């Protein structure tokens, strides 16, 4: 167990994971969630991580969020440790479940992050890698994603899609340097999912955040990303990195084009070869 310090090589303009190892359990039940993973994500990029269940993609995301510490290797977010990045509110998290507070209405929910950890502004200024942005108007942001009429509704009065959009606005509202999204649309129906993808791209385009997006949908990964990282399981590792060179903005119509299918096929091939290479028999 090595402690994670800010690595000397940490670059202020990228999220950097170097030689990360994460092992759960010990002895016979030991499972290698991440095996010597190197990732370099430049500022402003939309990067998706795709792979089968249990390949460690969520673990990788949690590493960047500072929710896990690697057993070996280093993680840094724009030049500082994940923990320091959290302290400066440089990280916005959108979990799989919307995780809204049911007693607060939509506007109160998205405004709450500004009310905690008030010292973060001071800390942000001291971090070289941070890019200063003005606090956004939450009502305008909510209106932009079609929640203008729902501002004073409780989460229980919203559909799943509206709840997840609220969670996205909450994360964007901090003007985080990086937005971490852990399969945020996996519980939504296809139609809603495609519509929200468009809205996510809109906000991303406007806010110029870096996004790390975990998904198990090939179509979703291709539509959203600049780069798709393909992972495979047991041990969890990155087997391919595919740059999606489709032009932006990417509309829903683009999903039907041959270029789009080309990238989908490419990633499917990578996923399948990773699946055949990797030991499929359960290590647990």
């Amino acid at each position: 167990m090595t402690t994670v310090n800010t690595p000397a090589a940490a670059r202020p303009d990228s999220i950097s994971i170097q030689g990360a190892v994460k092992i759960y359990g010990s002895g016979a039940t030991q499972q290698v969630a991440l095996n010597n993973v190197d990732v370099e994500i430049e500022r402003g990029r939309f990067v998706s991580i795709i792979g089968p269940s249990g390949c460690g993609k969520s673990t990788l995301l949690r590493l960047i969020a500072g929710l896990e510490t690697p057993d070996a290797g280093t993680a840094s977010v724009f030049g500082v440790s994940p923990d320091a990045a959290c302290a400066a509110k440089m990280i916005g998290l959108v979990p799989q479940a919307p995780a809204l507070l049911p007693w607060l209405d939509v506007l109160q929910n998205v405004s709450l992050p500004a009310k905690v950890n008030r010292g973060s502004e001071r800390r942000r200024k001291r971090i070289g890698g941070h890019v200063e942005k003005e606090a956004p108007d939450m009502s305008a942001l909510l209106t932009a994603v079609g929640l203008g009429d729902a501002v004073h509704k409780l989460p229980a009065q919203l559909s799943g899609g509206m709840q997840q959009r609220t969670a996205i606005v909450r994360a964007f509202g901090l003007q985080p340097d990086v937005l971490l999204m852990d399969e945020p649309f996996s519980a939504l129906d296809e139609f809603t999912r495609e519509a929200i993808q468009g809205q996510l791209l809109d906000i991303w385009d406007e806010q110029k955040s870096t996004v790390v997006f975990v998904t198990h949908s090939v179509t979703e990964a291709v539509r959203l990303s600049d780069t798709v990282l393909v992972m495979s399981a047991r041990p969890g590792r990155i087997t391919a990195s595919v740059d999606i060179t489709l032009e932006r903005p990417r509309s829903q119509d683009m999903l039907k084009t041959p270029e789009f299918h080309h990238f989908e096929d490419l990633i499917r091939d990578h996923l399948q070869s990773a699946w055949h290479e990797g030991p499929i028999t359960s290590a647990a």
Partner: protein
Amino acid sequence: MTSTMTTHDTPGANGTAADGIDPAVSAPVVALPVKTTGAGTRASRLQFLKPAYWAPVLVLLVGLGIVWTVVAKDSPYLLPPLSAVGEALAGNPLFYLQNAWATLQVALIGLVIGFVVAYVLAILVSELPLARRAIMPVAVVLNVTPLVAIAPALVVAFGFGPEPKLIVTALICFFPILIGVSTGLRSVSPAVLQVFTTLHASRLETLWHVRMPSALPYLFNALRIVFPLSIIGAVVAELAAPGAAEGLGTVISVASSNNRLAVVYAAIVCLALMGSLLLLIITAIENRALHWHDSRQGSRG
């Protein structure tokens, strides 16, 4: 569908644009005002008026009243006639009101003391594993100890003043609140906690903004148990301290030693009414405070 890309440029057109994007998602916005909580409570209030709602309990009460009257006619020392209980109440309403007020005061003050102590300890127990290991075993043992047995000892120690009554009431209210609140404080979903961890919210901020509101449904569950319990605690303490000035417990012990059964039952009626009233009040507060909670949200599309 390409209009998706430009929604944020034209705020004015947003309502329609959003509806165009995903009617499946937006539809509830239009449909909801019809079935908001306001309409729901009005309907449930009117339900009271329907015979199907109040008739069953009325039939049961009338039946019980008849059985009571028959038994009371044969053996008046088993049950006093209902008319005698009514006369006792009507003959000196101020007497019962005064004593009820004395008991209620003890019950409520004891409840507040028990509540404050239990709430503070619940926070300690849920935040500090060490405090949990120290406090919980003691609390559990205290809970299984019959408080009726402690009451006389407290009277010996503190005399006939309010102290032993308040202590017994506080003790009896303590445990349900401790368990309810400490469970509630730890009921927050991991996803919510992760969001607040990445925000680097302090423990105090997480406690205030997330844990304490999350614990509210558990707290109200405990209060619904504890409000009637507080009256039991007060009466038990009064029974254990005969000769104390006031209180329905004292009324009962004095009247029963004088074989005045009608007075005993008149006092019991008062206690039952008080308990019901407290339960009604706490339920009303709960409905208001927890309007957001799942159990109070009607089914939605």
